[in-house]
């Protein structure tokens, strides 16, 4: 078990294992997406109050969940990276940021589309919308910080501190905003004893949530593989993988592109 994790943390093995996992994860994601969309858009009955427009929930709710999950996951990865100095955790965290920001944006955009017919406005300053917007700002701040620092290693560590500060703040922000103003409908799924949502709607929602989750893992592994290649481009195993020197050329171009001034 520990040996597996130890191996996984080495870039070389990660690259290989992730490469094998990605097709399986991707295939499963596709199947779940098709099943979830079919059940959600065709099988599930229309809502007695909201009509057909509630169906946007099958995208909206999973992306809102993912936006929070990814932030917390990034915080855990950053903590691992900072404490045990594991490079791969940094790579995974910085590869997750853009995905998290997009999920947050998707949740806001679908929420806005749903809000127009339901609340009669594209945007209201409701508590959950506002805290989701602030979450987007937190993601964008992280991305801005990481891309502003030249050295990738320093960038990931600085971003890690920011993420950890943010994750302490998220509950505080959430409850302060909730207290400030709330209009959003209450949670319908998390009341496990008797959810106020019918099974025919709950099932596609959960399938979609799983699909989103797997989509995230598929794409983040793909992004992390590329990132690993870029960081390790000078090491032996990468040279062996690309013996024709195509990475070397990319390396030279990268250097010319990124640091024309800092040459000694």
């Amino acid at each position, binding site marked *: 078990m520990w040996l597996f994790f130890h191996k996984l943390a080495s870039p070389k093995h990660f690259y290989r294992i992730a490469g094998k996992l990605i097709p399986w994860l991707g295939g499963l994601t596709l199947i779940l997406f098709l099943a979830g969309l079919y059940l959600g858009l065709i099988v599930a009955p229309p809502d007695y109050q909201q009509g057909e427009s509630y169906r946007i929930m099958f995208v909206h709710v999973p992306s809102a969940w993912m936006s929070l999950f990814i932030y917390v996951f990034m915080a855990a990865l950053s903590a691992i990276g*900072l404490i045990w100095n594991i490079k791969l955790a940094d790579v995974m965290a910085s590869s997750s940021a853009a995905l998290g920001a997009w999920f947050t944006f998707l949740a806001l955009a679908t929420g806005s589309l749903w809000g127009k017919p339901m609340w009669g406005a594209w945007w209201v300053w409701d508590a959950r919308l506002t805290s989701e917007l602030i979450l987007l*700002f937190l993601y964008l701040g992280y991305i801005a910080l990481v891309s*502003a*620092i030249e050295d990738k290693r*320093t960038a990931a560590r*600085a971003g890690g501190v*920011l993420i950890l500060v943010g994750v302490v*703040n998220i509950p505080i922000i959430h409850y*302060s905003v909730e207290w*400030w103003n709330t209009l959003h409908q209450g949670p319908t799924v998390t009341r496990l004893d008797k959810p106020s949502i019918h099974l025919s709607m709950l099932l596609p929602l959960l399938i979609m949530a799983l699909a989103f989750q797997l989509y995230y893992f598929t794409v983040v592994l793909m992004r992390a593989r590329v990132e690993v290649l870029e960081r390790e481009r000078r090491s032996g195993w990468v040279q062996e993988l690309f013996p024709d020197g195509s990475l070397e050329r990319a390396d030279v171009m990268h250097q010319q592109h990124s640091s024309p001034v800092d040459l000694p």
Partner: protein
Amino acid sequence: MDTSLRAFNALLRRDLLLAYRHRGELANPLLFFLMIVTLYPLGVSPEMELLRKIAPGVIWIAALLAALFSLENLFRSDFEDGALEQMLLSPHPLAVLVLAKVLAHWLVSGLPMLLLAPVLALSLAMPERAIRALVLTLSLGTPLLSLIGAIGVALTVGLRRGGILLTLLVLPLYVPVLIFATNAVTAASAGMPIAGQLYFLAALLALALTLAPVAIAAALRISMG
């Protein structure tokens, strides 16, 4: 522990002395604060009723921005002349030294704002009860702004254009402070009790006082490589 306390005192005295030697610069954040507040009657409306309504938000947002811009230079000169590196190398816990710097900074920038705020509140036609609440929330809130902001400053200290980046990093983290503080002032002007909001701000301040110095120290160590 005793030597750490001595280092804390020495650094605090040094920073206050440095600030005193550059007293001209001390007025800048205050002027900024004043000008932002002045822009609102010009930009929105000089009508007293409206001003009284938006005054808590106006003053707090101005204080928040002024605190942020004055923070930008918290570590700048120490970074440029190498003093910051010496602090990193010193045997004392960096978190303690950093706390001294933040405290010195608050004494020279946060405290004057606290004194100026009642005057600005009067110019926006705030009732007396609300002014008392404003001063209370500012006295709990401005140290919070300094502590949280210093984390962002520490993360961006080595960067050439850190200013705008700093606002992106720090402003979302300021949201709870802004909400509780303005809510307290609004409640006070309506004659409602504000103990709950003040306790919340005090709790946040206690949390920031304990955790922020550690985060600032970690961030400084990373930025300085």
